[in-house]
């Protein structure tokens, strides 16, 4: 057993877990953050994507002890209070989800993707970058649409913020 302490969604948390415990299981079972899902055993499906120290990570590829000391954001921590994150809002507006199981991982991967492409995104880039996330319901059509729309909204938002700052 190891003691693990980290920041999750802005809150300091700690707990003890077996050394073999994956970060995803620590989040789900120790912290009760069940929004992060497990869809496969081989780090292929991306249902478990969270942000670790600002980067999208498949939380099944990481031991919980490895995340000790890190700052983790899960799907539960993405919205700003009652205000949805623009990617969450876009998934709803463009019907980018059906059963909802892959959705948390998709949204966490998409927010990271948009952040890594401040120049903006096109359909081919979004499709290529989604390679690590599997959805069985939507055929990706509306997920791609939602991410492109969110990317535009966020670009406008950040320009607005930049103007406000100036």
């Amino acid at each position, binding site marked *: 057993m190891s003691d693990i302490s980290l920041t999750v969604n802005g809150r300091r948390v700690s707990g003890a877990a077996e050394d073999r415990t994956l970060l995803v299981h620590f989040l789900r079972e120790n912290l009760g953050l069940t929004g992060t899902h497990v869809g496969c*055993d081989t780090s292929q499906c991306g249902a478990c994507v969270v942000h670790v120290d600002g980067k999208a990570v498949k939380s099944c590829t990481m031991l919980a002890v490895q995340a000790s000391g890190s700052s983790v954001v899960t799907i539960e921590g993405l919205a700003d209070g009652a205000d949805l994150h623009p990617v969450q809002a876009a998934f709803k507006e463009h019907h980018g989800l059906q059963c909802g199981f892959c959705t948390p991982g998709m949204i966490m991967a998409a927010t990271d993707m948009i952040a890594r492409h401040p120049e903006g995104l096109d359909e081919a880039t979004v499709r290529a970058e989604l390679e690590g996330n599997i959805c069985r319901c939507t055929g990706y059509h509306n997920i791609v649409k939602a991410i492109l729309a969110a990317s535009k909204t966020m670009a406008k938002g950040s320009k607005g913020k930049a103007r406000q700052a100036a």
Partner: protein
Amino acid sequence: MGIEGVGARVARKEDKRFITGAGRYVDDMVVPGMKHAAFVRSPHAHAQIKKIDVKKAKAMPGVIGVLTGKELKADGIGNLICGWMIHSKDGTPMKMGAWSPLAFDKVRYVGDAVVIVVAETKGQARDAAEAVDITYKELKAVVDAPKALERSAPQIHLEADGNLIFDWELGDSTATNAAIKAAAHVTRMKIVNNRLVPNAMEPRAALGHYDKAEDHYTCWTTSQNPHVARLVMSAFYNVAPENKLRVIAPDVGGGFGSKIFIYPEEIICLWASKKTGVPVKWVADRTESFLTDAHGRDHVSTVEMAFDKDNRITGLKVDTIANFGAYMSLFSSSVPTYLYATLLSGQYDIPAIHANVRAVYTNTAPVDAYRGAGRPEATYLLERTMETAARELGVSPAELRRKNFITSFPHQTPVIMNYDAGDYGASLDAAMKASDYAGFAKRKADAVKRGKLRGIGMSCYIEACGIAPSAAVGSLGAGVGLWESAEVRVNAVGTIEVLTGSHSHGQGHETTFAQLVNERFGVPIDSVSIVHGDTDKVQMGMGTYGSRSGAVGMSAIVKALDKVEAKAKKIAAHLLEADEGDIVIENGALKVAGTDKNVPWFQMALAAYTAHNLPGGMEPGLKETAFYDPSNFTFPAGCYICEVEIDPETGVTEIVQFVAADDFGNIINPMIVEGQVHGGIAQGVGQALLEGAHYDASGQLLTASYMDYTMPRADDLPSFKISTSNTPCPGNPLGIKGCGEAGAIGSPPAVINAITDAIGITDIAMPASPSTVWAAIRATTKH
């Protein structure tokens, strides 16, 4: 149409919880004292169990119980059954082999459950499962259905001699043979429909909880039809009587058919909870899902299609061998029979059809309904054959189809179905226009200049949805009725709960069903709650499959709304001192038509519950129940066109455009319907290009993870061009046909027709992976 009414593109109410991580799936459920299960599964495809030694496992840390099939049998838990009786053409009933939830004498496929281990943690359960020592005597295995029929094949079940479950036929053999004999041209093909793994993203899971004090069981399970699960577990598996068994299917992460069936694990978790005295949760890992979820398709067929000298189809003869896997899954027998052969007329006027289907046991995972279930197999067979026929006859594929279209309705086919409405020419025209079919030759010429092979293919599909009147399916062998139930409860403040037997696992019922209520009573959809998926809350219902939630589930709601409306109008008429025939419902109020006299909806509801001033003899309250049994199947149809470009150096196929033109009848929410089509097409394209379950000769599943089984990813697919036309379904009050399966049914032949067109060959195996395509190109003389 209001902004939240029928036909409106309303964003989904249920999305909030899913996009914020607040969805509640079975694996998210925690019950006090809950422990974890792991299954010991057969590593062999076919073997006798000689000895099971659990001593070492029982001594492992954290272990609470290790239970075997002998104990399960001793407790009277029944065998799993197939609920649809099929009789062979000689009149004998299908030969169903015994399927014990835990195997105790013999295992018949890799993944067959043998022992359950319950422990404090999932890790400890798995460690202990590894320590269970089972001695097997391996037997020869067979995985290929035609080979399983050979004399030398191993016998899998004593009950099914020669592994033949049934040898069934439909249609007129004599007339069909005569048509083929007299034909001006006969197109002959061998058609293989590849085996698929459904792969809902949420793996199957079950949480069984036995309450000793109440002698009551609760099962949380990943089900598309919790009431059917309760019925079957009570009536056939002897888990508990229905009144002592509550089945809850909470948020379910996709089904596609695979979560219709009642599997061994939910039965065993309930039983194990009683045996061990703790709630028992099991969640499949992905490899367990690959090994044990019911697979789909796996047909091998031969087809003969006869034409007269005017290129009209005069007969169709089909012979199919369907692989059922190691056991008969719950609805397995209906798939290659009444959901398949009955659709072999397609969109065409074919005077004589005969189909023969042999169902066969093999040492593979059980096979049952997967999105489309029988209809994709029928469509693939027919539309590949039509394409080949057009090429052989030297006519355009579009015109050959158009010439043979059914154009007047109702139309009685020679294979049971009576098509009620459709306009197949309209879909074909729409798809050809949207794809700029006429401009293909130029696009092909451009591709050639770039060193690419370009092809175009179409598919005109029909399907049968809703699944039919109960009496009709009963006469065809179904063990259940296929109606649906609804209950509409108007609360005293005017808000509304709709309890439905349909189950949403991605389809958006919480929104579309509420739209129906909004349309009727003007109540905002936020004031309408849809309740489903819990046998303690909702009266008996039949669940969601076969694109039935709209055509059947919503029709039941309409019937209940009719009754609520009638009573509401009576109350309003009484309050307004008007004639009930003069009451209309507009903008959230009940009005006397042509006057300004009205009573707001919520006041009428309150009056129903205060009961201070109701019409004489009227019962207080406002709650109505309805059961709806459809009068016919519904018949969605459409035309899909796929255009591909192939790199002859690598064999990689790119779908450069995919067009779908569907007729789903009336539509409640176009956004949700489009989403269903997108997802269906992705699964169909997956079947055609990427997906295939492969067993080696010894029965090991070689494609048992996402490293080996190619799921369609975002970069494998284009954005789709889709449209709908509408011939309303005359068979139900909403004119709905259903849209859930169309994409998966119509798309595989369109893709393969395009690929074979590009390469200039007659056939190619699905999935047409790069290596398969590359080899096919090399085999042609051109390259």
